[in-house]
């Protein structure tokens, strides 16, 4: 093993440990705010792994989109739904967790066996490296042109839809009796359940 390979291996190990540790903490941490920040750690470690895989453009995109947009969005969402909420305990929560953990462990073993036993057709051509960005551009405007254009429609619609759903409406909530039925399904709910359903209106 020469020096370059050694450095790669060490950085791979560090990044993977960081990624998996942060991911476990995201899932297990009792505090949602810590989870959100650690998610940023997962995304950054992932970007490091992409660099090891000779993909500098995707690594940059990962940082920009995942850390810069998605993670910030999640933090905003946590701020907006900022209510210190102690979830009522549910019966058998522990059994459910243990069973799920066992299933996930089994899934990992299965995937691991698959990965190790499959003879991957390794191609030893030199990697595109820094040329990758030119090749990506070429792909986007030739054989991946159609999905590229469709994504633009999808993003436009997601933008419109997210605004429609998340914006507050001009109709005042409580005082206006006429507005109460607005923005609701015309069908009555089957029974009146808990706080949110104030469906009885003739």
């Amino acid at each position, binding site marked *: 093993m020469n020096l370059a390979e050694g450095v*790669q291996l060490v950085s791979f190990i560090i990044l993977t440990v960081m990624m998996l540790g942060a991911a476990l903490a995201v*899932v297990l941490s009792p505090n949602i705010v810590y989870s959100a920040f650690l998610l940023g750690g997962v995304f950054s470690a992932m970007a490091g792994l992409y660099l090891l895989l000779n993909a500098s453009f995707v690594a940059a995109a990962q940082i920009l989109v995942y850390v810069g947009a*998605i993670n910030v969005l999640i933090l905003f969402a946590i701020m907006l739904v900022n209510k210190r909420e102690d979830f009522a305990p549910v019966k058998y929560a522990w059994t459910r967790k243990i069973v799920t953990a066992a299933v996930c462990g089994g899934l990992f073993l299965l995937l691991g066996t698959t990965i190790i036993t499959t003879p991957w057709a390794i191609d030893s051509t030199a990697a595109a490296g820094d040329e990758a960005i030119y090749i990506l551009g070429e792909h986007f405007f030739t054989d991946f042109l159609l999905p590229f254009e469709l994504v633009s429609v999808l993003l436009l619609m997601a933008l419109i839809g997210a605004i429609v759903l998340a914006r507050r409406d001009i109709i005042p909530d409580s005082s206006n009796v006429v507005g109460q039925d607005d923005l609701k399904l015309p069908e009555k709910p089957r029974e009146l359940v808990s706080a949110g359903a104030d469906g009885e209106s003739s």
Partner: protein
Amino acid sequence: MQLQYFLLAAAALFCIGVYGLVTSRNAVRVLMSIELMLNAVNLNLMAFSNYLDPAVIRGQVFTVFVISIAAAEAAVGLAILLSIYRNRNTVDMEQFNLLKW
């Protein structure tokens, strides 16, 4: 460095995502778990792209698409979450039981 290392790391991340998806009670954390699963897929694609397809790098193209769509999905998911929070004043998955058969 071997392809298998990356794939194993991706598989582990995927399983952590599945675990979080099933056990989380906070809806925001469920969304985070889905992001973890998508990231695992991305790592898979990038590893394949580097080791099996180093000259044409279709895997990198795929990853860029997955990243952009994950962003759209997260935005829509959080918008839906906000509207449900406004009506029900909770993000606890166990409380979302108006619809049961």
